[in-house]
C-alpha cells in the first residue's frame, strides 16, 4: 500500500544507507521542535504559588512549637504558578521514550502495553481514597480484590500461598530468602550458602547477601543452561537454596530444573525461582510443577502495571504449603463471606515479620487483577505464547546479521552480541545508541554478563508483526552502517535533544542535586 507520509520506510533506504540524514528511522524517528527547560530551582521570582489552599485561622502562629525546632520556610524551593509547572513537566516529558511513544524491547523488563483502563480503575475513589487502617467492614472490596489476586497468583505459579506485600522483584527475592532461612532455622540451622548460576540478575546475589548468605556462583553450560552435575558438585548441607531464573536471563528454559530441584531437595535445600521472566510461562507451565518452592512475581512486568520511570513495582511471593507459615504479614484470608487481613504475629508465630509498611502496593494489585480479569484463562495462556512467538520471530530475522551466542531455543527473549560488528570497531553501545536515532528504545545491553557485549531483546506480546519488522530493519541497517560508515555510528544518537552523555564525568565529580550557583564541568 502506497506510503505518502513523505517518509521513506527505511528498510531499503538504510540498507543503501550511510545513516539517517535522509528519511526517518525505521521506527519513524526524525527531528522536530522541543524545548529546553531549566531546573525548577533555576527559575523565577519569589512570591508565586501554584496551589490554592484554605486560609489560616486569623492570628494563627505556631508558637506552641519550640522556636529552635521550627523554621519559617524552606529556602531554595521554587515559587512558580500552576501554568509554569504544567509547562515544565510537559516539556521535559517529551524528552522521554516510553511504551506509549514507541517500541521498548528492553530485555528482562517485559515492557508491554500498560492498559489505560487499569489507570482509570486504580483511580476509583473507593480505592484511591482508602486508608490502610480502615476497619474490615469498611474495606471489604479492597480485601476481596487482594484475596482473588492471591488465589490467581498462587494458581498461576502452581504453588499454595502468596504474600502480596513485597514492593518489587528484588524485595520479593529478599522475602523469599527470608522464608527459606526461617525454614532452615526451624530445622536448627540457617545454613550458609546460596547457589546461583552465572546468568543470574544482580539482585539475586545482593538479596542473598542481605540475608546473610554467601553466594556461590555456578557456571552455566555451553548451551546456556545450568547442568545437574554442576549442581551436584556444589550441593551440600551448607546450601540453603539454589536461586534460578526460568527461563533464565538468556531467554533459555532451564530444562533440567526438575532434576536440579531433586538434587537440592535431596540435601535438604530449597529451590527459589526469580519470577521476573514469568511472562514466558503464563498459562503454559508452572514453576510449582517443576520443583520450585518459592517464587516472586514482578507485577510491573508480567501483569503490565506501569514501570513509571523506575517503579513503583510489586513483587508478590508464592510458596509451597509447608513454607506458608513463614510468609511476612499481612496475609489476606476469607472467612465465610468476609475477608480479613492477618496482621498479628500472635496468629502467625512463625512469620518472618513484615517487609514494608502496611499491606503492599495496593494500586498495583488493582491493575494486575484488572488485567487477569480481562484476559481470563485463555488470554493468560495466549499472552505467554505470543510473547514467545514475538521473540522467536525477531531471532529468526536477525540471525546471521548479529551473532547469536547460544543456539539453544529462546522463549520470551533472545540474546545477541556484537561479535560480528567488533571487526569494524562497533560495539553494542554504538548499536544501542543508533537504535535511538531510528526511533526505538535499545534492548538491555551488556547483560547477562556471560555474554560479552550482550544485546538482550524482549519484544513482549503486545507488539505487532509490523513493529518487529521495522525494528529488524533498523538492526539490519545498523549492521550495514557498521561496515560502510562506522564513524557515523560512534556519533549516535544524533536526533535526540541531548547527544551521548558523559557517564564517567558524572561519576568522577558527582553533582547530585541543585545548589545555588551549581556548576557542571
Amino acid at each position: 500500500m502506497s506510503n505518502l507520509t513523505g517518509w521513506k520506510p527505511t528498510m531499503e533506504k538504510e540498507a543503501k544507507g550511510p545513516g539517517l540524514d535522509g528519511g526517518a528511522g525505521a521506527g519513524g524517528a526524525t527531528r522536530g521542535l522541543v524545548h529546553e527547560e531549566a531546573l525548577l530551582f533555576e527559575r523565577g521570582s519569589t512570591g508565586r504559588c501554584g496551589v490554592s489552599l484554605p486560609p489560616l485561622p486569623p492570628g494563627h502562629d505556631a508558637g506552641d512549637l519550640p522556636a529552635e525546632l521550627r523554621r519559617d520556610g524552606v529556602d531554595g524551593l521554587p515559587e512558580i504558578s500552576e501554568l509554569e509547572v504544567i509547562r515544565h513537566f510537559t516539556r521535559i516529558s517529551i524528552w522521554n521514550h516510553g511504551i506509549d511513544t514507541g517500541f521498548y524491547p528492553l530485555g528482562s523488563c517485559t515492557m508491554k502495553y500498560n492498559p489505560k483502563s487499569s489507570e482509570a480503575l486504580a483511580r476509583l475513589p473507593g480505592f484511591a481514597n482508602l486508608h490502610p487502617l480502615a476497619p474490615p467492614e469498611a474495606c471489604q472490596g479492597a480485601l476481596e480484590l487482594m484475596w482473588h489476586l492471591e488465589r490467581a497468583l498462587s494458581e498461576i505459579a502452581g504453588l499454595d500461598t502468596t504474600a502480596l506485600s513485597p514492593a518489587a522483584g528484588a524485595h520479593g527475592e529478599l522475602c523469599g530468602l527470608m522464608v527459606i532461612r526461617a525454614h532452615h532455622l526451624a530445622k536448627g540451622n540457617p545454613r550458609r550458602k546460596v547457589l546461583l548460576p552465572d546468568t543470574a540478575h544482580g539482585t539475586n546475589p545482593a538479596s542473598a547477601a542481605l540475608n546473610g548468605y554467601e553466594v556461590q556462583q555456578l557456571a552455566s553450560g555451553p548451551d546456556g543452561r545450568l547442568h545437574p552435575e554442576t549442581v551436584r558438585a556444589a550441593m551440600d548441607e551448607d546450601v540453603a537454596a539454589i536461586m534460578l531464573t526460568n527461563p533464565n536471563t538468556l531467554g533459555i528454559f532451564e530444562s533440567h530444573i526438575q532434576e536440579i530441584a531433586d538434587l537440592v531437595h535431596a540435601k535438604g535445600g530449597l529451590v527459589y525461582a526469580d519470577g521476573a521472566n514469568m511472562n514466558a510461562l503464563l498459562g503454559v507451565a508452572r514453576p510449582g510443577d517443576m520443583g520450585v518452592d518459592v517464587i516472586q512475581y514482578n507485577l510491573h512486568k508480567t501483569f503490565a502495571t506501569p514501570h513509571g520511570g523506575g517503579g513503583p513495582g510489586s513483587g508478590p511471593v508464592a510458596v509451597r504449603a509447608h513454607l506458608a507459615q513463614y510468609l511476612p504479614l499481612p496475609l489476606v484470608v476469607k472467612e465465610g463471606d468476609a475477608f480479613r487481613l492477618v496482621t498479628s504475629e500472635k496468629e502467625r508465630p512463625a512469620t518472618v515479620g513484615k517487609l514494608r509498611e502496611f499491606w503492599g502496593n495496593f494500586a498495583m494489585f488493582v491493575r494486575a487483577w484488572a488485567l487477569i480479569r480481562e484476559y481470563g484463562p485463555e488470554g493468560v495462556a495466549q499472552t505467554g505464547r505470543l510473547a514467545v512467538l514475538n521473540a522467536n520471530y525477531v531471532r529468526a530475522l536477525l540471525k546471521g546479521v548479529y551473532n547469536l551466542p547460544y543456539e539453544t531455543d529462546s522463549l520470551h527473549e533472545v540474546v545477541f552480541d556484537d561479535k560480528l560488528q567488533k571487526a569494524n570497531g562497533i560495539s553494542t553501545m554504538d548499536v544501542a545508541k543508533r537504535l535511538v536515532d531510528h526511533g526505538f528504545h535499545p534492548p538491555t545491553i551488556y547483560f547477562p554478563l556471560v555474554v560479552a557485549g550482550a544485546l538482550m531483546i524482549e519484544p513482549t506480546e503486545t507488539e505487532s508483526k509490523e513493529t518487529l519488522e521495522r525494528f529488524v530493519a533498523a538492526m539490519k541497517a545498523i549492521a550495514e552502517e557498521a561496515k560502510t560508515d562506522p564513524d557515523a555510528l560512534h556519533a549516535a544518537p544524533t536526533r535526540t535533544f541531548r547527544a551521548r552523555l558523559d557517564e564517567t564525568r558524572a561519576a568522577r565529580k558527582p553533582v547530585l542535586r541543585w545548589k545555588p550557583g551549581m556548576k557542571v564541568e
Partner: protein
Amino acid sequence: MRYHPHTPEDVRAMLDAVGAKSLDDLFRSIPEKLRLKRPVDVPPALDEISLFAEFQRLAGRNDVSHPPFAGAGCYPHHVPPAVDQLLLRGEFFTAYTPYQPEVSQGTLQALFEWQTFVCLLTGLDVSNASMYDGATATAEAALMATRLTGRKQIVVSAALHPEYRKVLATYLRSTHDEIAVVPFGADGRTDLRALEKAVGPSTACVIVGWPNFLGVVEPLPEIAKIAKQAGALTITATAEAVSLGLLQAPGALGADVAVGSFQSFGNPMTFGGPAPGFFATREANVRQMPGRVCGATLDKHGKRGFVLTLSTREQHIRREKATSNICTNSGLTALAATIHLSLLGRAGLSHLARLNHARARMLREAMERAGCKAIFSGPYFNEQAFDVGDAEEVVTRLAKRGVLAGAPLGRWYPDHPRAKGALLCVATELHSEELIQLFARTVRG
C-alpha cells in the same frame, strides 16, 4: 483481544518464519511433563464494560465517604488535579528506569529535582532516587550506619513508627540482632536518660521519628548530641512530610540521615501503597548510600544532561557486595511528589504546614471541650493522641457513620497505662472546621 495485535495470518506467517508448526511447538524446550495440560483456573474473561462494573462493585464496598481522622503513617491530603494529569502522560508512566539517558532526560531531570527537594526539606547534602517506602528506607539507613561505623547495635525510640520498627527488625534479623528500644515519657518524647544509657561504643545509630508516631516533636538536638558523643549516627524517620514545611530540617538539628515517606505530597492513600520512600544523608556517606542516584553531566556538545550515576554501589555492578539489593524503586510516586512540591513552592508548603498545624490545634480544642484530653504533653504537628475512653469502640461506632476515627494506640502499645483510651488522630487541610466539630461531638457518642 485488544492487547494482542496478532491476527491469525500474522501468527501463521511468523510461525513459518520461525520454522515452527504451532505455538505449542515454540515450547519444545520445556519437557512435556512440565507443561500445564489444562487452562489455568482464573475467572472467565470480562469485556471492558463488565470489567468496570465489577471494579465499581469492589470499590463500592470500601467506605470513603469522609476524610479519615487516622494518619499513623498514611495521611489524607488534597492532591491537585494538575499532578495526576501530568502523571498520566505516557512519556512518564510507561518509561522504565532511565538506563538509556539520551531517551530518558525527562525522567532524569525530574529525579534530579526530586533529589533536590529531598535535600532542601531534610537539610542534608545528598539524596537517592527514592526507596520502596519509609519503613524500608529506615531499615536501609540502619544498615548503612552499620557499614559506616562498623558497629552492630541499633538503638530505636519506642515512639518510632511501630511498622518501621517491625520492618527494621525483619530486615536485620538475619544479619544483625542487637536492637535496643528506648521508652518515651509522659510528654510522648523519647526518654533522654534512657537513651544515654542505651547508647554505647557498639551503637551504630539512634533512630527517632520526626515527628514521632505519637505525633510528638522530639528533642532532636539533644538526641543527636547523645548519639554523636557515642560516635553513633542519628537517623530521623518522617512519615508525615508536610511537617517539614514547619519543623526545622533534621539535618540542621544534627541528623546524619533522614528517611521517611513523601506520600503526603501528591500521592493518594490507596490503602497504604504505593508511596515514595526518601533517603538523604551527608556528602561523606554518599558511596555507602543504597539505591539509584541521578547526577548531572555534559553531553558530547557540552550541554548539561542527567544520568544515573555512582552505580558501582549497586547490585547490577557489585552484586553480593552492593550497598543494597534495591533495583526498581518508587519512580512515579516520587514524580507525583516532585510535581506537588513544585506547585506548592516555598510559600505554599509553609502555608500548608501551618494550616495542618492550625487544624490540629482546632481538633485539640474541640476534643478537650468534648472531654477527651490529649494524652501527651509534648509539642505536636498535625497528629495527637486523645483519651476517648474506649478507642476500639469509638472506631467501630464511627465506622458505621462512614468516618475512620483514628488509630487506637493499644494495637501497638498494649502495655501502655493509657492504651485502652488512646486514639491517635490527625487533622489536615481536608478536615474543615465543621467536620472537626462534628467529629469531636460524635466521638463521645
